[in-house]
């Protein structure tokens, strides 16, 4: 059977959705990540990789909503922040253990997903972007209004730590990342993923072919929220702090930026870009003075030359290379 693969801006039709061979590169990557602490002893680098794992969860949960379902969200920090603050408040005031705060963080964020999803059903494009951003803005403003409970812009500090040992923290973050991103990959390669993409491409056609668009959109909002909320809650436990930064527009924009650079609608693309950009950002600290300059310039260059995003371009490049090797006679 001929293998048909499309690049990310078209509908991806997996020939046999969950055939394990397709995930060979993913499994290799996971193995490498599992082995990292054996070779790298620098706490600093481990800490950086923990951050990469957490951002991988932020970005992939966003990609589900925006890349696959076409719901442009500029308010992902709403989900991240509600998860983070749930964990923070429960831990700070009530000393609730982490194993409970993290799932609860996901649940609260999922609720916000539902609340946000309903008014957003009729919105598209920049209107949707604005509404999602306004929603996260409302919560950010509320932390200032209820500053006595939320800690205002100082936030809540002294939140229970995942572990004092960075290697242990790393494995927790990695396990969580594998579970969440693995689940997302499974999801988007299934029937559900196909439905989401058809909604993205043409909502009315999808509706006409019998898909309950409203139901799927809402489910996606809730799911995206749930996963991002878990990641957000976990994040506050690694930082031992939660603050208005977790509701900020800046965070939402970073999510958008990293995902677009990586390639929308691929799940893997945002994860790869997340790792690369976070490491790039730290590596550039050496030249602190012009760091943001080079960073923003790099993003500009990437977009100009690789507009589809890193991962889709690399994949299609590899495929073209393989085809060329297979049939050199045809010119």
């Amino acid at each position, binding site marked *: 059977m001929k293998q048909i693969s499309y690049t990310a801006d078209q509908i991806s039709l997996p020939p046999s959705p969950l055939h394990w061979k397709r995930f060979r590169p993913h499994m290799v990557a996971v193995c490498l990540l599992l082995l990292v602490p054996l070779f790298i002893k620098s706490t600093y680098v481990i800490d950086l990789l923990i951050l990469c794992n957490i951002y991988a969860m932020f970005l992939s949960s966003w990609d589900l909503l925006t890349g696959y379902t076409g719901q442009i969200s500029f308010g992902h920090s709403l989900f991240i922040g509600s998860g983070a603050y749930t964990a923070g408040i429960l831990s700070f005031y009530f000393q609730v253990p982490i194993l409970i705060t993290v799932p609860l963080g996901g649940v609260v964020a999922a609720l916000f997903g539902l609340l946000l999803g309903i008014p957003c059903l009729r919105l598209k*494009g920049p209107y949707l972007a604005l509404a999602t951003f306004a929603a996260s803005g409302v919560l950010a403003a509320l932390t200032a*209004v209820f500053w006595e409970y939320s800690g205002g812009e100082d936030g809540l500090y002294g939140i229970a730590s995942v572990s004092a040992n960075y290697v242990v923290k790393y494995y927790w973050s990695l396990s969580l990342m594998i579970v969440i991103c693995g689940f997302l990959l499974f999801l988007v390669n299934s029937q559900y993923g196909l439905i989401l993409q058809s909604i993205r491409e043409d909502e009315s056609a999808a509706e006409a072919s019998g898909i309950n668009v409203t139901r799927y959109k809402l489910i996606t909002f809730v799911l995206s929220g749930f996963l991002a909320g878990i990641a957000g809650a976990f994040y506050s436990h690694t930082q031992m702090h939660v603050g208005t930064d977790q509701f900020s527009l800046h965070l939402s924009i970073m999510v958008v930026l990293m995902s677009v650079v990586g390639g929308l609608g691929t799940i893997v693309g945002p994860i790869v870009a997340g790792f690369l950009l976070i490491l790039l950002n730290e590596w550039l600290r050496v030249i602190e003075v012009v760091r943001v300059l080079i960073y923003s*310039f790099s993003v500009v260059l990437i977009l100009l030359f690789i*507009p589809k995003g890193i991962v889709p371009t690399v994949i299609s490049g590899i495929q073209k290379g393989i085809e060329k090797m297979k049939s050199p006679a045809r010119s």
Partner: protein
Amino acid sequence: MLTLLEILVYGAVQSAVYALLAIGFSLIFGVAGVVNLAHTGFYMVGAYLIYTFFSVLGLNLYFSLILAVGLTGVLGMLVQQFCIKPLIKSEYSVMIITVALAMFFQEVLLSTYGPVDRNLTNFYDATYKLFGLVTIDAQRLITLIVAIILIAFLWFFIKHTRFGRAIQAVAQDNEGAIFVGISPNRVYLQVIFISAALAAIAGALIAPTLGARPHMWEHPLVRVFICVVLGGLGSFEGTILAAVIIGYTEVIVSFCLSSYLGELVAFAIILFVLTVRPTGLMGKRAVS
């Protein structure tokens, strides 16, 4: 009574500022479908340029203005031609690249001028009492008057001149415009020149009150985005209406509650409006 008058006047000033900033953004979206998030970057560049010419080099005020505004307009054209045009097929990419550009401008200005606030001298130093009751300083009064004149002028220009009609043509039907001999690309360049120039004028007018700093593009961008989307993309009148609503909301909340609640109320209003009218207050263009 005094409070009412004050709200009226201060609200007008605030609305005028937002409208002046938002109009250019709305224009380029309406015409080219481009969400140019570097728009407030132009506002910042304009402010710094006029600071350089007027406050540092001591050139004549009008000359400095023309130079600053003109240069910013040219910058806009360069951005359009080399950064936006290649990516015009993807909405997200345009948004990201323009935001990255704004950060880039910020860093360039940061390296050149440093992080410290720069003081722009007021065009004119005086204090007035409007209607004998409402205190207002000259710079803000000038801002209000200039903004109203410019907006009126632009409205007339778009509706009643040939050039304006060319802009409308491209906005309504890109391909149709080509058929009647209008070059969309040329129109985009002209429109972004106007858009960036307007942003620069806003920068020159407002910056004396606030000071110029490399991060000054961030906060207004949010406001501008709100005004344009809330008003309905592609609607000139909608943008102005939204600017008035947001401007007055802030002032009224400041007077009646507390100033720092302004954002909260504004966001709540946005969510409400979008739920009720999914294409904004006066949006005509259906976004696919």
